[in-house]
């Protein structure tokens, strides 16, 4: 019965056994944890080490320091602006356009299957 549970999943060309992965993960974690123990503790609570560095500007109240969703991945979304703009135009929110896309796919597939 236990064998059934711990059997390795064969994926055609490879294999996957999460239990072995977890075991490996624990071993690596322990090694890292032990190595960490050899380090020198230079961190001092309550000193300037614990403050955010904002190019010399004072830190705001904590509640104003939260990075909001729209500000995350700014560069990434900016780099993909060209495709995002196209997709935004496509997603009009108008149900007539939703049906139009259905008709387009229907037409393309009619031609494709008709040529078979």
């Amino acid at each position, binding site marked *: 019965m236990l064998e*059934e*549970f*711990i*059997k*390795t*999943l*064969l*994926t*055609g*060309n*490879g294999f*996957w056994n*999460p*239990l072995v*992965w*977890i075991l490996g993960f624990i071993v690596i974690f322990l090694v890292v944890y032990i190595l960490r123990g050899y380090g020198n503790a230079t961190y001092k609570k309550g000193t300037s080490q614990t403050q955010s560095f904002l190019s010399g500007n004072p830190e705001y109240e*904590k*509640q104003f*320091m*939260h*990075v*909001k*969703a*729209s500000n*995350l*991945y700014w560069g*990434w*979304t900016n780099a*993909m602006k060209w*495709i*995002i703009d196209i*997709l*935004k135009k*496509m*997603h009009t*929110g108008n*149900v007539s*356009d*939703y*049906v139009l*896309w*259905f008709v*387009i*796919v*229907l037409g393309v*597939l*009619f031609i*494709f*299957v*008709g040529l*078979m």
Partner: protein
Amino acid sequence: MSIMDFLLQQSPALIIAIPLLGAFLTPVISRISDKGRNLFVILILAFTAFLVFILAMHVFETGPMTYVFGSTQNVVSNNTVIRILFEVDALSAFMAIIGIIIAFAAAIYSWSFMDNETGLDKYYSLMLLMVVGMLGMVMTGDMFNFFVFLEITSIASCALIAFRTNKANAVAAGFKYIVISTIGALFVLMAIAILYGQYDALNIAKLAQSITFSFADKIALVLLVVALAMKGGIVPMHMWVADAYGRAPASISLILIAATQASLYGVFRVLFTLYGNVITMPSISLGWVMVILGLLTMLIGVIMALIQTDLKRLIAYGAVAELGYIFLAVGTGLTVLTTPENVANIAGYGFEAIKGGIFHIFNDILDIGLLFMVAGALYFATKESSLNKLGGLARNMKYTTVFFLIGLLAVSGIPPLNGFSSKLLIYESIFQLNPILSIIAILASIMLLAIFIKVFQSAFLGPALPQFSHVKEVPKSMLLAMGIVAALIVFIGLFPDLFVTNVVEPAANALINNQEYLQWLTGGI
């Protein structure tokens, strides 16, 4: 005959009849007690789940089960199938299992989640009707019945999407959904009429034996595939998904995912069973069409998710991306099946691809379902769904945070959770069809991870915000529902082979081997 034998023998009918009866009894019980009604719905779904499980175990062991309504006498007369029947093979059983699990979780979740809403008698009735439609779609062996169940699912879903009638967006989403559903269903009906006109049959097995891939058959095929793909949320016909999933109550978004997958099941049933005898003709390369649509679905889903700031809409686009993986994998299997030089590979990577796709249906519903439940929990606790306004909630909602992390890692395909196992099967198999497909699929997964990390950072991490200082953890019933789904995610993640061997493989076999499905017709009942 023991009770168990009786239940097993009658299970295909009871699986539909019990929630259907429950749907009509719910308003009556609601008049007596609200808690009694909630408990009644949970018990109905628990008993239906029990029936689904015994039926599934039987089907996985012994092959398809055919249930004829009315009488088993004279099913075939003058070469025509004259009775309505359900035919449950391993794929149907697989879909029924996931559908009922998620509906059961949704009912438990609803207990507290919907507690402050009015009109709950209608809510629970419609929920049960939605389950009836979904289960009927995956179990019927008759095309017209499939259409009827599709309609039941659509109407119940529409009413539930627009359940919060005081919110204009919810009503608009319901309207869009019913327009899309009606158009889709009408085209399905038109396709059924074309097939009926030609072959004088509505039975899937009978039709599958008769179809010759004539011009009219081609028209019916396109109508069925495109209409069901639209109902399944495949790009570029996916736009309703964000509206519907985003505006429905979270407990309903959960069942909507399973209902959407039931439409995808319809696409696969049409391609592999109904047209199974002709689809392997080398001139037909619909597999590549599925592969391309799958790729587009994945990429457009993740890019649209990236720019969302409303949590439920973001998850909805994530769900679209996940549908792409399923379509891509099954499309790969179909491509291998229809390419003469690759026929030897169907036992190899073609089958692995289909296994991966089927496995991913299960994982997708669980992972995205859990994320929707977390989104609902956040809304329940804060009355806020904009990611720009949320923050620091891990302090107040520790269990919900853990559930979100499980969902996040699972949906992004991070080991050792369930999403990784199915995605690994998909990556490896599609790599052999074309390495670029695999690269794009992995890229989309990485993007999904990044997107959900954004959610985690903006909703759960960061400093405590004063407006959420009063926020408390959600009630126990919601935690229990999330816990059930999270436990399944972890369990399948830790023991993937157990699940793949016993559940996924029989379903994948049933999909590619349509002769088993047709057997009853040639061999008699």
